[in-house]
C-alpha cells in the first residue's frame, strides 16, 4: 500500500452506507489529502467501502472494507469483462470537480456538436442504433428526430432520473459518479432537437445524486458550458409512477403525478404542451461517447437489434454484487456465473444454485436457470416474457418460492399505483390477494384460473406501463414455474 | 281405455333463508296465483314460507337461497344444502353480494373485529338497560368474523340479484328453469341490483 501514488475512494451511496467516510479518513491520515480523491462507483458494491490505489507504473490495486483490509482482484472477470462507455469516467473522475471532469474530456463532444448542424447530430445518433435505456427501448435517434421535426422555437429536453425499480441503481451511479456526463448528453440533445430548456427529474430518495447534480449544474453554468440551455432540477415526491413519462411531466408542471393516455406523445405535446424530448439518465449518458467516437463505433457493439452497451445492477443471491456495464448480447450466464460468481455457497457448505434471474423489476419477469445462455438484448428477453427494463438484475436461488416473488412485486405495484385507472388501482389489489392464497398454500384450481384471467385483463386494459406490466412477474413465473403454483393449491400435497 | 299418462316426477324444490331480511321470500310470496302453477310443477320439500320441515332433505333438485352467510348456522346449512341439491341459486342481493348484512365487514379490520364490534354496538352501546353480550352456546349461533356472499362459501349455479328481486323477475327466472332452459337474465328488469 505504501507504493501507491494516489487513491480513489468511492464516495457513492452504497459505499457511504458501508463506511466510506471512515475509510477515506484513514487513507487521508496515512497518505495526505492531496493523494486521496473522491470518486463515484467502483462497481463491486457488495465489498464496499471500496478504494483503488493507482501506482506510478499503471498498476491498479483494489481494496474493500473500512480499513481497506480486503484486497480485491481487479483482474477478476467481474471487472475485465466490463465494457465501460456510459461509466467510462465513473470511478475515475471526482464528481464534485468540474476541472477534473474537463481534464478527462467532459464537454468536448458538446463543443464539437455545437459546430455541427443539428440534423447531423441526430443522424449520428441514429447511426449508433442506441435505444432508450429506461426500459421500452424506443430508438433514441428516431425520438430525437421526431422532436426536432416539430414546429416552434420552444422545446424542452427532460431527463428521467426517477429510477425506482427494486434492485436498480444504474442511473444513481451515473448521477453520483459523473454528473457532468448527463449534462453534456442533455445539452447535445438540446442542440440536436432545438430545445432551450432542460429539466432533470430526480427522485427524492437520491439525496447524494441531487447534491451532485446541483453542484454540477452550478459549475457548468458558471463556466458558460450550458449557454443557451436553461437547466432545472426537479425533485420527485416519492411516487414510482412518476417514472412514467406523462406522469413525470404532470409532476414537473406541479400537478398530481398521474399518467395520461398517449397520443399525444410528449414529442408532440409534452411539458407545458411543448414538444418534449424525454430520455432516461443512461440514454443521455451514452450520447457524449457516441458523438465523440461516432455512431458506427457504438453500433459495432452489441447485437443486430440491440446496439452498444448496457449497465446492469447485479444483486440478489449472487457472490459479486455491484454494477456492471457489458456489451449487449452478453449471455446471462456470463453475467451471473462468470462475472457475478454465481450463488454463494450455503451455510452448510453445499453449492448455491441459480434458480432464475429476475430482470426488469416490477415490469419484468424471471428467466429460469435453464435459459441462462440467453443473450441479453431487448428482443431476447421479451421473447422469454421478461424485459430488459432499466437494468435491475436480481439473482434468485432455490430458497425463494416463485409465488412469493410474484406477490412481492404485486405488492409493490399495489403501493405504487397512482389510482387513476381501474384495472391498476383495483385489479392489482385483487391479484395480490389471489397471490396470498398461493403463498399461504390455500389456493384452489379456480384461483389459478382467475389469477390468469385477471392478469390478462390488467395487462390489456391498464392505462399506463405500470399497470400494463404489473402482471408480468406473475405471468413469467407461471410460464416457467407453473408447478410451484399448482403445488400451492390446497390439498395438492407437499 | 286410454293409457294412463306417466307423470314425470315433480321437481324437488327448496327455499332457504340465511342472513337476510326475508324480503326475498316476501317477494316470492308476491307471486300470488302463480304459486299455484309452481306448486303444480314442483314439490316444495323445504322452505320457511311453504313447508314445516326442519331438516334440509336429501335429493333436492332446485334450491333458492336468500341471505348472506353470517353465522355458524348459516354456514352449516349452506354446506348441507349444497351437498344435497342439484342446482343452487343465490336468491337476492344478500346471497349475491352480502349486501346489508355484509356492512359489518367494514369493521373487520378494527380491534376486536367485525363480530365484536357489531355485538358491542347492538347490545351494549345502544342498549337502554341491561346491556350485555348475548351468550347462549348451542342456541344463539356464533357470528362468523366476516359475512360472506353465498358463492364465497359454496359453488353457486345461478344468481338472481335484486333487493328484493321482483316477483316478476323470480317468475321469469323460474319459468325458464322449469322449462329446462338457462334463464335469460338480461336487461335491468331481470338483472339490476338493488
Amino acid at each position, binding site marked *: 500500500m505504501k507504493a501507491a501514488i494516489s487513491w480513489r475512494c468511492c464516495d457513492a451511496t452504497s459505499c457511504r452506507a458501508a463506511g466510506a467516510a471512515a475509510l477515506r479518513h484513514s487513507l487521508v491520515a496515512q497518505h495526505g489529502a492531496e493523494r486521496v480523491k473522491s470518486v463515484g462507483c467502483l462497481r463491486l458494491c457488495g465489498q464496499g467501502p471500496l478504494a483503488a490505489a493507482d501506482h506510478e507504473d499503471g498498476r491498479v490495486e483494489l481494496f474493500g472494507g473500512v480499513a481497506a483490509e480486503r484486497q480485491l482482484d481487479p483482474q477478476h472477470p467481474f471487472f475485465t469483462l466490463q465494457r465501460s462507455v456510459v461509466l467510462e469516467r465513473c470511478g475515475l473522475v471526482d464528481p464534485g470537480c468540474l476541472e477534473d471532469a474537463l481534464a478527462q474530456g467532459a464537454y468536448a463532444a458538446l463543443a464539437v456538436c455545437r459546430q455541427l448542424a443539428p440534423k447531423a447530430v441526430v443522424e449520428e445518433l441514429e447511426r449508433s442504433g442506441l435505444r432508450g435505456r429506461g426500459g421500452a427501448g424506443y430508438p433514441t435517434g428516431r425520438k430525437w428526430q421526431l422532436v426536432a421535426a416539430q414546429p416552434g422555437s420552444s422545446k424542452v429536453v427532460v431527463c428521467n432520473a426517477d429510477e425506482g425499480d427494486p434492485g436498480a441503481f444504474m442511473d444513481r451511479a451515473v448521477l453520483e459518479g459523473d454528473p457532468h456526463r448527463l449534462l453534456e448528453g442533455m445539452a447535445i440533445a438540446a442542440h440536436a432537437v432545438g430545445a432551450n430548456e432542460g429539466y432533470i427529474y430526480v427522485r427524492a430518495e437520491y439525496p447524494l445524486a441531487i447534491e451532485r447534480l446541483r453542484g454540477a449544474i452550478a459549475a457548468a453554468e458558471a463556466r458558460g458550458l450550458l449557454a443557451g440551455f436553461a437547466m432545472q432540477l426537479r425533485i420527485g415526491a416519492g411516487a414510482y409512477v412518476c417514472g412514467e413519462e406523462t406522469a413525470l411531466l404532470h409532476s414537473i408542471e406541479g400537478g398530481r403525478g398521474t399518467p395520461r*393516455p398517449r397520443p399525444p406523445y410528449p414529442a408532440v405535446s409534452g411539458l407545458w404542451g411543448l414538444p418534449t424530448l424525454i430520455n432516461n439518465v443512461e440514454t443521455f449518458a451514452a450520447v457524449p461517447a457516441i458523438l465523440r467516437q461516432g455512431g458506427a463505433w457504438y453500433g459495432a457493439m452489441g447485437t443486430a437489434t440491440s446496439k452498444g452497451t448496457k449497465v446492469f445492477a447485479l444483486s440478489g443471491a449472487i457472490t459479486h454484487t455491484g454494477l456492471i456495464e457489458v456489451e449487449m448480447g452478453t449471455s446471462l450466464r456470463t453475467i451471473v456465473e462468470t462475472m457475478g460468481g454465481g450463488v454463494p455457497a450455503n451455510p452448510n457448505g453445499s453449492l448455491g444454485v441459480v434458480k432464475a434471474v429476475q430482470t426488469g423489476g416490477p415490469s419484468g419477469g424471471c428467466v429460469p436457470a435453464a435459459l441462462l445462455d440467453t443473450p441479453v438484448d431487448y428482443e431476447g428477453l421479451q421473447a422469454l416474457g421478461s424485459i430488459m427494463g432499466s437494468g435491475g438484475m436480481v439473482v434468485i436461488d432455490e430458497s425463494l418460492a416463485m409465488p412469493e416473488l410474484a406477490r412481492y412485486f404485486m405488492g409493490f405495484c399495489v403501493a405504487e*399505483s397512482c389510482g*387513476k*385507472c*381501474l384495472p391498476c388501482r*383495483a385489479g392489482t389489489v385483487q391479484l395480490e390477494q389471489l397471490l396470498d392464497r398461493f403463498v399461504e398454500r390455500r389456493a384452489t384450481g379456480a384461483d389459478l384460473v382467475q389469477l390468469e384471467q385477471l392478469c390478462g385483463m390488467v395487462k390489456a386494459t391498464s392505462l399506463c406501463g405500470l399497470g400494463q406490466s404489473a402482471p408480468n412477474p406473475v405471468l413469467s413465473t407461471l410460464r416457467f414455474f407453473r408447478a410451484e403454483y399448482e403445488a400451492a393449491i390446497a390439498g395438492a400435497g407437499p | 281405455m286410454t293409457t294412463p299418462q306417466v307423470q314425470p316426477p315433480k321437481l324437488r324444490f327448496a327455499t332457504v333463508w340465511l342472513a337476510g331480511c326475508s324480503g326475498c321470500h316476501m317477494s316470492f310470496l308476491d307471486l300470488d296465483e302463480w304459486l299455484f302453477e309452481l306448486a303444480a310443477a314442483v314439490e316444495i320439500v323445504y322452505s320457511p314460507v311453504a313447508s314445516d320441515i326442519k331438516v334440509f332433505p336429501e335429493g333436492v333438485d332446485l334450491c333458492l337461497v336468500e341471505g348472506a352467510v353470517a353465522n355458524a348456522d348459516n354456514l352449516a346449512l349452506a354446506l348441507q344444502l349444497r351437498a344435497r341439491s342439484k342446482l343452487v341459486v343465490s336468491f337476492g342481493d344478500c346471497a*349475491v353480494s352480502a349486501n346489508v348484512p355484509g*356492512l359489518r365487514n367494514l369493521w373487520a379490520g378494527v380491534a376486536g373485529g367485525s363480530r365484536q364490534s357489531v355485538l358491542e354496538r347492538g347490545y351494549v352501546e345502544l342498549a337502554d338497560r341491561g346491556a350485555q353480550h348475548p351468550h347462549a352456546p348451542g342456541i344463539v349461533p356464533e357470528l362468523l368474523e366476516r359475512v360472506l356472499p353465498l358463492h364465497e362459501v359454496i359453488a353457486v349455479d345461478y344468481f338472481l340479484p335484486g*333487493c328484493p328481486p321482483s316477483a316478476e323477475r323470480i317468475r321469469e327466472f323460474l319459468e325458464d328453469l322449469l322449462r329446462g332452459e338457462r334463464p335469460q337474465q338480461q336487461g335491468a328488469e331481470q338483472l339490476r341490483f338493488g
Partner: protein
Amino acid sequence: MTQASPSITLQINGQPCTVAADATLLQAIRSAGLQVPTLCHLDGLTPVGACRLCLVDLEGHPKLEPACVTTAAEGMVVHTHTPELESYRRMAVELFFAEGNHVCAFCVANGACELQDVAVEVGMDHSRFPYQYPKRHVDASHALFGLDHHRCILCTRCVRMCDEIEGAHVWDVGYRGSACSIIAGLDQPWGEVEACTSCGKCVDACPTGALFRKQDATAEKQPHPERAQQLAEARTDRRWHNQ
C-alpha cells in the same frame, strides 16, 4: 360561419360510418347508433380514459384503446364487442363493485345509477372478486349536499365539472392507489371550502350516489349528466338549451 370540417370514414363492427375528422371513436360509435359502456366519460368534460370500459379493438393495432380519447381515423376498423372486450368489461365492472361499498338497496341513486346500468349492460349477476369493504367516510359538512365516499368510483367527473365548467376547482384527487379519494379543498370538510359556490354541478355529474342532495332519500336522486354538455355548448357555441 361554421365550416364543415372534413369527414372521414371508418368501419365499426362491420358497418361503415362517416364522421368529422376530429371526432373521437366514442362519437363515431354513437353516431353509428352503437354503444360502448362508459363511466368516467361525460360529454362536455375533458375525457381522461380512466375507467377503461370504452376500450375498443382496432384491427392491426397492438393495444386496446379507449374510445373516449382516441381520434377516429380514415379506414380504421373498429370492434366494440369482441369476446375478449366483453370479458374484460365484465371483470372491470366487478372490480368497481368489489373495491367500494356499493349497497344499492339503500342508495339515493338506486335505479338512476350509471354503475348499476353498466352492471346490467355487461350482464354482471355477481362479483367473482371478493368485496374489499374499504373503511371510508361520509362528508356531510356541506349545508346542501353530501359526499358518501363508499359509493365513489373515482371517475373524477365532479373534479372536472367543478374545474372546467364552474371554475371553482373545489375537488381534486388525494392519496394513491386503492386509497385514492376525492378531496375537497386541501382535503378539508366540504362545508369549510370557501371556493365552493354550492352550485351543485358536481352532484349533477356524479354517476353514482356518491354526491347527493341532502333532501334525497333512497332512490330519490335525480342525476343530470346532460348539464356539463349544455353549459359547455352555451359557452363555446353560444347555444342555449332553454331558448
